[in-house]
C-alpha cells in the first residue's frame, strides 16, 4: 500500500492533516508568498464577523516564556469585504477553505454563516465560540453548554456544509461543552483555543497589552491541549482538530496519537513560516520509518499505562 497523508473531516477530504490556525495566517495571501498553499490540508481564515473590526489598540501581543499572549480583538475586514476582496483569492487556492466565524450575538453568527453558505469554495465553517478577546459573546458562548448547543443548532440551519466547533480550554469540563456542541449538530471539534492569561511588566507596573488580559498560545500550552484532545477523543466519536503549541513534526504526531484527525498550527508559523512544509516532509519520513501507511494508523493510538 502507498503511504498517504489524506484524512477526512466530516466527509471533506484533506490532502494532509496540516492546517493553519485561525488568526495566524490572515486570509492566506502573505503565506502564499512563502509557500504554495496547496501544501496545506486546509487554510483556516482569521475570524470573520458581521461588521469590520479594527480590534484592540496596540500593543496587543506580548512575548511569554515559550509562548505569547494576544488580544488582537478579532480585527477583521467583516463579511462583506471578506466576500468581495478575499474570497476571489481563496477560491483559486488548491486547498480546502475553512472560514472561522465569530460574533458577539447569536444573530451575527447566523447572518455571517448564512452569507457563507452561498460561497461554494468555503468547505467548512469553524465556529469560534471560544475567543477570550471580546467582551460580549465569544467566550461566554463556549463556556456554557446551553449556549453552545443553541449556537450550533442555529448555524447548522443556515449553513449546509460541515461546521466545526472551536472549543475553549477555559472551562471546568471541555467534554461537557463538546457533548453540547455535538448535540447541537457539530460535525467536528477544534481543540483548543487560547488559555486566558495576563502579562505584566515588573519595571513599568503596566500590563503589556491594552486589553489587559489575552489568550496564551505557543509551546507552553501543548500539554494542556494534548490532555483536552485526549479527553474529547475518549468521549465522542466526532473528528478532532488538535491545536496548541505545535512547532515540530513530533508535536503533530503527539496530537494524532492523542486522538486528533488533523491539526492546526498558529504561533509556530510566526517563528517559522515554512513549518508546515517541513512537517509535511518529515511526517512522511516518520510514517515510513514506523511502517504506517495512513494517518489513521496514528490517530488515538497513544499507549496508556
Amino acid at each position, binding site marked *: 500500500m502507498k503511504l498517504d497523508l489524506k484524512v477526512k473531516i466530516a466527509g471533506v477530504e484533506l490532502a494532509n492533516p496540516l492546517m493553519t490556525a485561525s488568526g495566524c495566517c490572515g486570509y492566506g495571501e502573505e503565506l502564499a508568498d512563502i509557500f504554495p498553499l496547496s501544501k496545506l490540508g486546509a487554510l483556516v481564515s482569521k475570524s470573520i464577523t458581521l461588521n469590520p473590526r479594527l480590534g484592540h489598540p*496596540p500593543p496587543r501581543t506580548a512575548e511569554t516564556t515559550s509562548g505569547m499572549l494576544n488580544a488582537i480583538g478579532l480585527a477583521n475586514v467583516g463579511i462583506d469585504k471578506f466576500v468581495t476582496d478575499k474570497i476571489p483569492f481563496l477560491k483559486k487556492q488548491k486547498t480546502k477553505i475553512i472560514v472561522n466565524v465569530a460574533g458577539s450575538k447569536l444573530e451575527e453568527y447566523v447572518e455571517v454563516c448564512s452569507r457563507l453558505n452561498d460561497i461554494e469554495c468555503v468547505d467548512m465553517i469553524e465556529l469560534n465560540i471560544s475567543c477570550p478577546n471580546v467582551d460580549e459573546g465569544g467566550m461566554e458562548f463556549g463556556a456554557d453548554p446551553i449556549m453552545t448547543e443553541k449556537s450550533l443548532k442555529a448555524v447548522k440551519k443556515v449553513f449546509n456544509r460541515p461546521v466545526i466547533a472551536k472549543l475553549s480550554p477555559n472551562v471546568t469540563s471541555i467534554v461537557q461543552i463538546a457533548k453540547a456542541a455535538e448535540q447541537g449538530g457539530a460535525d467536528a471539534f477544534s481543540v483548543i483555543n487560547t488559555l486566558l492569561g495576563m502579562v505584566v511588566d515588573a519595571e513599568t507596573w503596566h500590563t503589556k497589552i491594552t486589553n489587559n488580559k489575552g489568550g496564551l498560545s505557543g509551546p507552553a500550552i501543548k500539554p494542556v491541549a494534548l490532555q483536552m484532545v485526549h479527553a474529547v477523543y475518549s468521549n465522542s466519536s466526532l473528528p478532532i482538530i488538535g491545536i496548541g503549541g505545535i512547532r515540530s513534526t513530533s508535536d503533530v504526531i503527539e496530537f494524532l496519537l492523542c486522538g486528533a484527525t488533523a491539526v492546526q498550527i498558529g504561533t509556530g508559523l510566526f517563528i517559522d513560516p515554512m513549518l508546515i512544509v517541513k512537517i509535511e516532509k518529515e511526517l512522511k519520513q516518520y510514517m515510513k520509518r514506523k511502517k504506517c501507511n495512513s494517518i489513521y494508523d496514528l490517530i488515538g493510538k497513544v499507549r496508556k499505562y
Partner: protein
Amino acid sequence: MIKPTCEDTFLLKKRNLKNDYFSFTFKPYVPVKKCKPGHFLQLQLPNSDVYFRRPFSIASVDSNGSIEIIFKIFGEGTVLLANLAKGDKVNLLGPLGVPFKFPKKNEQTIIIAGGVGFPPLMYLAVEMIAKGHDPKSIHFFYGGRTTDDIIEKTRLNKLGVNFYPVTEDGSFGVKGLVTKPVEEFIKSSNSNMRIFSCGPTGMLKAADAIGLKYNIPGQLSLEAPMPCGFGICLGCVKEKTDGTHARVCCDGPVFEIGEIII
C-alpha cells in the same frame, strides 16, 4: 511586498563597533539581489526563552551573497545575539517590509538618523550614490546622546555625504537635539527636499512634525514589536491618521510623513 525567503545562514564576520554596538555579517544569503534600503530581516535566536524572532534592518548587502546587520544590545534577545560566535548558524527570514522610495536626483535628501535607526539610512545613502545621486545632495543628520551613540563615522565620511553629527551633551558635533540643525538647514535651503528618518520615537515625531510644518515630503521607518514580521498576526499595528490600522511589518516599516500617529 516581495516574497521573503526563510533560510539558514552562518555568522561570517562579527565586529564590536563600540560598547553595545555590533556589526554581524551573514553568508550565504541568497535573496541578496532582492534587498533594498528599508527592508529588514527577522532573525531566529537559538533559544526559545526568547520566543519571537527579532527584527533588524539590513545595513548592507554584498553581491558576493552576504548581508550585514548592525545592532545594539537592548534586552535578552540582543544579548543572546551578541553571544553568537563566528560560524554559528542563524535562520533569517527576509527581506521583509516596504523599502524606502528613492528621492529624485534633483532633490536634496535630508536624512535624520538616531540610535539603531542608523543602519537602514546608511544603506539608503550607499544605494543612492550607487544609483548616481550626488553624495553632496545627501545631508546626513545623525543624533545621539553622546559621542558613544555615533557609530561608523569613517564609513559615512568615506561616502562623501554632508555629515552633521549632533549630540545632546556636545561630546561630538553640534550640541543639542538633531531637530534644530535640520530646521536651520531647511530654512536656509530653497531646493526641493525630501526627508528620511529612522530612530527613537522622539526623533520620528520631530521629523514627522518638521515635514508637515515645512510641507516637505518624506518617509519614516517605524518600529513595533513583531511576532511574525510578514503580515499574518496583526500584532504590530499602529494607528493611522485616517483612523485605520497599518501593519508596521508589511504595510511599513517605511511610511509617508503624516501617515501614522507616532
